[in-house]
């Protein structure tokens, strides 16, 4: 093992060490709040280690792991999501009487998987990282056992995830068959030689393989038509888990999808871009249309999160075009940041209103919030505007960059669909705002320091960053994929 190998894996290795120590320490910790703090400290140190790597780019472990601007950007976002996830869970799991140290251990294991996913440069690492991030999430979704909703959520997420894993595996097998390797670097060189290296490259097999990987990861990021059980999973899981799942699993899934597709499959773009186009359009329409008829806020936000997967997928459509790719990758990353921030804020508000046994989750429970808790209602309004894509929020800027990237790629109709579906989504997002301010009601909220800080902080950032979004976009643009 060389020093370079060590550097590429350092943050992940540290976090792994920290989880193991945390799990041991947890045995002796009586107040589980301390476990949460320790977990957060671990994430913060890992974040520091990750940020120390800014500017480096390297391949580690003989092409297993890659370190580049893209991975650092995505990992920073993931670690921040982890911190926000802990902040939301801190009071919530105590209130729901499911406070146990394993919660934080499993959360960190999942983050390890997600970070590996962002750095994976070998399909074997993609597969293992996918499972490492998923398996703790299955358990976290069922964490409120023996609550039947939570258990059902865990089981459905598990079956869906295992099914998706089967597709990814078969896809990787076919890609291996087409090229003789699972390493992205070698796959690329075989494809580029195209018949040179003993003439083994087989484009048809490669295409089926890539399509199957797309199906499998489509399940993971909840794209239509692979979204079957996602709403059930999001609704049944403890809300703090849903918030983390909606952001973390999406970021990691998209990061892997982006790296694999942009690096290894650009030659297949003629066949796959139309497929991605259709999936993206279907996801935007499906998610937004079904969300309209929902009365449960968790379920509505689940469909909203499906719809947002559709918007992010827009950034993938021009993946084979080297001229547009940097812009669309940057737009996708920017949108992920915007989505993550808004997502955690929104779920924070949901957590603030949630009562034990699934009470306080109907949209009608938000009536009167505007009068009684003006700050919280204002924050929720900001998030709803951001999810719709209206000024003055980050959501608008994110959509602007996305649509611009798609237009540059020449996909005018996709941008049009994006605009139309955003207009549709305004209906159900604004309904929440109307309920909060116009309807009479006795909304009840819980006061928790970390929860309030996360929610209000997210709201302030959503507005502030949208006023000067340039620096973030430039950061996203600098987060380039390393080319082999």
């Amino acid at each position, binding site marked *: 093992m060389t020093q370079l190998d060590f550097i590429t894996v350092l943050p992940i290795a540290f976090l792994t060490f920290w989880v193991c120590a945390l799990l041991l320490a947890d045995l002796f910790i009586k107040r589980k709040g301390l476990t949460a703090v320790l977990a957060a400290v671990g994430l913060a140190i890992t974040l520091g280690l990750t940020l120390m790597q800014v500017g480096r780019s390297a391949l580690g472990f003989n092409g297993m792991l890659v370190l580049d601007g893209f991975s650092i950007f995505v990992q920073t976002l993931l670690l921040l999501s982890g911190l926000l996830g802990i902040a939301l869970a801190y009071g919530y799991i105590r209130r729901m009487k499911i406070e146990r140290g394993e919660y934080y251990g499993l959360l960190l294991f999942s983050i390890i998987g997600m970070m590996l996913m962002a750095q994976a440069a070998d399909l*074997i690492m993609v*597969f*293992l990282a996918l*499972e490492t991030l998923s*398996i703790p999430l*299955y*358990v976290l979704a*069922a964490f409120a*056992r*023996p609550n*039947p*909703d939570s*258990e*059902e*959520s*865990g*089981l*459905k997420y*598990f*079956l869906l995830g*295992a*099914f998706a*894993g*089967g*597709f990814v*595996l*078969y896809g*990787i*097998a*076919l890609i*291996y*068959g087409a090229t*003789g*390797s*699972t390493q992205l670097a070698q796959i690329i060189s075989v494809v580029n030689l195209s018949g040179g290296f003993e003439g*083994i490259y087989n484009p048809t097999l490669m295409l089926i393989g890539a399509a199957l990987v797309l199906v499998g990861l489509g399940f993971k990021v909840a794209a239509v038509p692979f979204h079957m*059980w996602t*709403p*059930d999973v999001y*609704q*049944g899981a403890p809300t703090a888990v849903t918030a983390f799942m909606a952001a973390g699993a999406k970021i990691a899934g998209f990061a892997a999808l982006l790296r694999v597709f942009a690096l290894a499959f650009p030659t297949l773009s003629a066949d796959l871009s139309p497929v991605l186009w259709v999936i993206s359009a279907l996801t935007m329409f499906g998610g937004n249309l079904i969300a309209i008829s929902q009365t449960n806020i968790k*379920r509505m936000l689940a469909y909203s999160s499906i719809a947002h997967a559709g918007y992010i997928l827009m950034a993938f459509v021009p993946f084979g075009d080297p001229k547009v790719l940097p812009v669309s990758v940057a737009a996708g990353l920017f949108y992920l940041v915007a989505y993550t921030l808004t997502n955690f804020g929104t779920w924070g508000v949901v957590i603030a209103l949630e009562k034990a046994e699934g009470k306080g989750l109907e949209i009608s429970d938000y009536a009167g919030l505007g009068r009684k808790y003006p700050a919280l209602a204002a924050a929720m309004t900001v998030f709803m505007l951001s999810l719709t894509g209206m000024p003055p929020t980050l959501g608008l800027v994110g959509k602007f960059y996305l649509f611009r990237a798609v237009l540059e790629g020449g996909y005018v109709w996709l941008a049009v669909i994006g605009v139309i579906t955003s207009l549709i989504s305004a209906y159900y997002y604004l309904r929440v705002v109307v309920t909060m301010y116009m309807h009479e009601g006795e909304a009840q909220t819980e006061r928790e320091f970390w929860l309030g800080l996360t929610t209000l902080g997210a709201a302030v950032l959503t507005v502030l960053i949208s006023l000067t979004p340039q620096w973030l976009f430039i950061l996203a643009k600098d987060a380039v994929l390393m080319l082999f």
Partner: protein
Amino acid sequence: MMAGTLPISYYLGLSALLFTLGVLGVLIRRNALVIFMSVELMLNAGNLAFVAFARMYDMLNGQIFVFFVMAVAAAEVAVGLALIVAIFKTKRSIDVDQMNSLKG
């Protein structure tokens, strides 16, 4: 060994069929355990394809991948069956279509 007398495509056809049967099982059955068994069929189909390709290229990397898939499968089974048994204790059923306390 005599294995060399068979073209790899035979193995691939078989693995495609096995994969399809697994997908079919996941999509049509309602019992969570059978759905999970069908997923195992899918994983085995993938593994079979890997081993066949590894033989075709005369390389070990395909076999190593299968080794890892087996480790992952074992981990998945542990968690999955624990979840199935837990939900049976609360609901007395593992029929996923009857699981509609979450409306869907």
